[in-house]
């Protein structure tokens, strides 16, 4: 009888913990960022391109590549995205992540933000900026980059 009493709370605790762990669906911060390129030292390398929604999210704003002090950066401007569990910013050769560069975790679902592009990436090879949920392979939004 003692064991039955012990089993029930333990089982409930474990199940609750498992459910709580599985419910961490939205992890990207939501506070608006204000990261902007400095026009005095940054030169645009692509046209400003608007985001379109992917099958799993709603994304607005624009994407543009700049060259700042010899380093390429992707700027997301007037940006807004629906939240997700594992949102990343990719440069990709296609509208889905094919031949991509992973620029890292989306810093915020809103505001202006900058992402460093790794040295060695030939930016003109990449014609899409993607907002992509890596863990579940879901495309939230994309912008076609033109040069």
């Amino acid at each position, binding site marked *: 009888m*003692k*064991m039955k009493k*012990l*089993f029930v709370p*333990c089982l409930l605790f*474990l199940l609750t*913990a*498992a459910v709580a*762990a599985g419910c*961490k669906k939205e*992890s*990207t*911060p939501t506070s608006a960022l204000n990261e902007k390129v400095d026009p005095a030292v940054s030169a645009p390398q692509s046209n400003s391109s608007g985001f379109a929604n992917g099958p799993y999210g709603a994304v607005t704003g624009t994407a543009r590549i700049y060259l700042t002090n010899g380093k390429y950066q992707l700027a997301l401007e007037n940006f807004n995205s629906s939240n997700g569990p*594992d949102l*990343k910013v990719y440069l990709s050769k296609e509208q889905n*992540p094919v*031949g*991509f*560069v*992973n*620029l*890292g*975790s989306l810093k915020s679902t809103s505001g202006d933000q900058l992402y460093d592009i*790794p040295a*060695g*990436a030939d930016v003109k090879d990449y014609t899409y900026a993607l907002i992509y949920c*890596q*863990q579940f392979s879901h495309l939230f939004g994309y912008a076609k980059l033109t040069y």
Partner: protein
Amino acid sequence: MKYFLACLVTMAISIKGFGQGCSDAGFCSLGSLKNHIENDSLSGAKKRRFSLGINYGRGEQNTSTINGYAEYAVKLNNTLAFQSKITGTYATGFLGSAFNVGDVYATFNYSPKVSDANSLSLVGGIKVPVSYGNSKNSEGKPLPLDYQASIGTYDAIGGINYIIDRRWEFNAAIQVPVIQVNKSTYFPDEFSDPRALEFAPTNQFKRKSDVLARVGYYIFLQQSSIILKPSLSGIYHVGNDSYENRFGQRTGIAGSRGLTLNGSIVATKQLKNGNQIEVFVGTPFIVRKERPDGLTRSAVINFQYTIAF
């Protein structure tokens, strides 16, 4: 009882001086591979055991981990037993904190009769991940595997335990990741703190197998019903682990293959009703150059209480 308390105090004090790296992916602490001798006159008639345990470990860059687990074991007949276990981990350090449920283990233990003095056990089972190594901090940044409750692999586990004359114990075991579903997205350069670079990138991490060899010696303190077992374990990680770099290319992590040599001591006190109190401390003497799986601890101390019924 005073011997038991003395052991606890001695071990608790001694872990301060330990070095870097007690490392295993779970098989070291499973069933008969951990601690096999018991007083049959106290627990022999009881077929089931339920254990709750908690351990504290210090990892890379002073990351603290508190790992809790629940274990249920049942003797199916005179030679066959089944054991299941679920783990959960809270980790905290300079990159943030995370809690998650870790892994579920299910193992069978087959112990054919060899002789009164010697015993043989064969262990086989699986490890199933409940989480996938992608917990994030409060700022939404992916944390290294040192902070994760599971590394997200479905593993096959096999092992053998042989005890000679109820004194010397020898173990050999293997843990093979069969299906890898790790979802880590950790890149150290997402953090501005340079200490983050001490954790290897583990984006879409893939892990290699481990093999274990262990020797232990049982010391029976008759008056206090305490069994002590100091042991020495060698764990060989058979290949370099790998991750997916920013260009989507799989990249080996040099130095992640190699040997970890651990020393440990476990003290078990069996109570008159068959229940058990167990304390384990361990520390490594030799570690791998790179330990991206985050399983390495500079020291571990574990407490477990087992109810037999």
